[in-house]
């Protein structure tokens, strides 16, 4: 028998949702300060209004749903999935007020794209967007990459056991430290340290490239947030092509790869355990999949003959490939070029890379390396079983921080999530095809949205059908949360309607 949710459930969900909204409102102080620094009055008002609406909503929820009870699993998952939807709506308000988005749906699309670290965008006239709004676009990537709930856990929530439930709901099932709040704080420590180093590196490179110092460091900070959080937004409409700089491309590749590594691996590297980088199943799988997918892209590009020199082919092919594989979405070519200059083989290589993604407990989306590694290990185990004598006992192990025995439940879980992602990629492609886009283009864009990548072959623009925009928003949301929280909210809605 399905039980109908009680009023108590709604109160607990509302209370914690309200707290997260208040956290989001507090973060809007940052763009307001930036607006004051750059003397951008109307942008400051946009964020002031958005902050007021957020405080109002958060306060009402906290006061009406006042409770001292802790979250259970179902409630934790629902808080997480609703937090992302509410963050999208509240985060879209300042964007819409700027007048650079044609509709509120377009602003919501970009807000979800930012929070989910995707990077697909519907912004108009980006080259004249204020510093304030530009910072917000990148800041929401930084926040979304770490996880909206992780922020709340790090700064606004003090030691309650429901924390772990929300942490898991945000697609992070690995604890780096013994408790989840310290884990969240460690994730922030890593990110802030890299933020400082990355901004410095990009800022200095920008100055050497001829940019004005203020602009250079502003761009440095924005591009860092988009690179390390594998987001893909950029302050200018040409994305990374704007800089016309090989050094800039090299630095962003390093940052994208760092962002695609497991935070747990970062912890071990910081502790001096460098061997882990070589032994870890995720880094090994990442290395192999990069080799395989880049080979496909290289053969495809060689067939087209667009890049006659090997260095050109490597620079363009490898950059888009790494950008896709790490789920970033930076481009050094125009979106339309993917459709006109690249052939289908090269596009398939990038689609595969996008579909696979980076490491678990990183800022990337998609199936992820640990799952791919586990599935291959399971294949290997089954092959061994066939080849070896019947009485032989076959045991397969893999190294992920420690030696782990390959158990059936691990394989099942990896296969389930992989299957869910494949269905999600396919569904988006079907809807794209329904609206008349060619198969490869529709699959490319759908995979990019669902895997939170952000590479585009030109389908994503403000003129595309509203239903397709909604499809991509849902894909970004489900892909970022890795389904569990989304399934829970669907179950919750079903129980509300059919439960007794």
């Amino acid at each position: 028998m399905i039980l109908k949710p009680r009023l108590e459930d709604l109160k607990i969900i509302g209370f914690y949702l309200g707290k997260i909204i208040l956290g989001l409102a507090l973060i809007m102080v940052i763009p307001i300060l930036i607006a004051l620094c750059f003397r951008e009055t109307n942008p400051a008002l946009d964020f002031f209004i958005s902050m007021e609406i957020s405080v109002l909503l958060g306060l009402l929820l906290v006061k009406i749903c006042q409770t001292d009870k802790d979250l259970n699993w179902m409630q934790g998952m629902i808080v997480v999935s609703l937090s992302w939807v509410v963050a999208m709506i509240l985060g879209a308000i300042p964007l819409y007020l700027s007048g650079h988005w044609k509709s509120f749906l377009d602003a919501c699309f970009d807000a979800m794209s930012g929070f989910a670290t995707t990077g697909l965008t519907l912004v108009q006239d980006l080259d004249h967007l204020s510093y304030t709004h530009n910072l917000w676009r990148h800041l929401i990537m930084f926040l979304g990459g770490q996880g909206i709930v992780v922020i709340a856990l790090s700064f606004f929530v003090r030691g309650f056991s429901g924390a772990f439930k929300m942490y898991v709901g945000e697609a992070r099932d690995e604890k780096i430290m013994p408790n989840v709040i310290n884990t969240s704080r460690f994730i922030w420590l890593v990110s802030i340290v890299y933020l400082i180093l990355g901004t410095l590196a990009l800022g200095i490179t920008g100055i050497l490239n001829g940019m004005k110092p203020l602009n250079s460091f502003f761009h440095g900070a924005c591009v860092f947030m988009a690179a390390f959080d594998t987001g893909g937004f950029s302050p200018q409409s040409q994305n990374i092509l704007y800089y016309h700089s090989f050094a800039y491309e090299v630095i962003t590749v390093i940052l994208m790869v760092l962002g695609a590594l497991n935070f747990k691996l970062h912890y071990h590297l910081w502790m001096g355990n460098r061997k882990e980088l070589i032994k870890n199943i995720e880094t090994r799988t990442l290395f192999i999949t990069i080799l395989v997918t880049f080979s496909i892209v290289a053969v495809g590009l060689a067939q087209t003959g667009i890049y006659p020199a090997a260095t050109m082919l490597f620079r363009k092919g490898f950059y888009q490939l790494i950008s896709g594989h790490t789920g970033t979405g930076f481009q050094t070519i125009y979106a339309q070029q993917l459709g006109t200059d690249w052939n289908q083989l090269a596009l398939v290589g990038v689609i595969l890379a996008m579909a696979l993604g980076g490491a678990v407990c990183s800022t990337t989306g998609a199936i992820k390396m640990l799952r791919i590694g586990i599935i291959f290990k399971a294949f290997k185990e089954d092959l061994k079983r066939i080849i070896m004598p019947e009485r032989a006992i076959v045991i397969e192990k893999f190294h992920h921080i420690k030696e782990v025995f390959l158990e059936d439940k691990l394989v099942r879980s990896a296969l389930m999530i992989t299957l869910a992602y494949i269905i999600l990629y396919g569904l988006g492609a079907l809807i794209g095809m329904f609206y008349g886009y060619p198969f490869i283009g529709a699959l490319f864009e759908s995979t990019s949205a669902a895997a939170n990548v952000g590479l585009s072959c030109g389908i994503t623009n403000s003129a595309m059908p509203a239903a397709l925009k909604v499809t991509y928003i849902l894909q970004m949301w489900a892909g970022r949360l890795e389904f569990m929280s989304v399934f829970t909210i669907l179950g919750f809605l079903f129980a509300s309607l059919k439960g007794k």
Partner: protein
Amino acid sequence: MKKKFKLILIILFLVFSATRIAFSQSLSSGELIRNAKEYDGKLIVYSGEVIGDVMLRGDFAWVNINDGENALGAWMSAALAKEIKITGNYKSRGDRLEIMGVFHRACFEHGGDLDIHVRSLLKVTNGRMVKENLNFDKVSLSLILLGVLFLIWILTLFKHK
């Protein structure tokens, strides 16, 4: 001698006219990107607003020019780039240029970038600073919301008492 002089005059006239025709037949960025193969290596005319930074690289400079559809990278001599006084951003509209140069679908010199190597430049209009007018609707809305928040705060205080 007279014939030669006439011929020179005709050639000069044709060259001048051709240049004028080229400057008036500017291609859009969308057209160039979509049909990059067709225009590759050809002398084209492109016009738009200078956006972002003029990035000096030794004797040359990178200038990004936006025609309203996309921005394209233009590689030009530093001397030509000196003509640019204002670039476009939130607080300004950049100089509008009409450039003539060789279009590259995948530039060999610049690692495969789609770019234009500029030969000549014409400033169509000067850029200008944009005065930011305070939006009073936004001011009113923020004050109303502030009032509502204040009211809720007062109500909360009463509830506590």
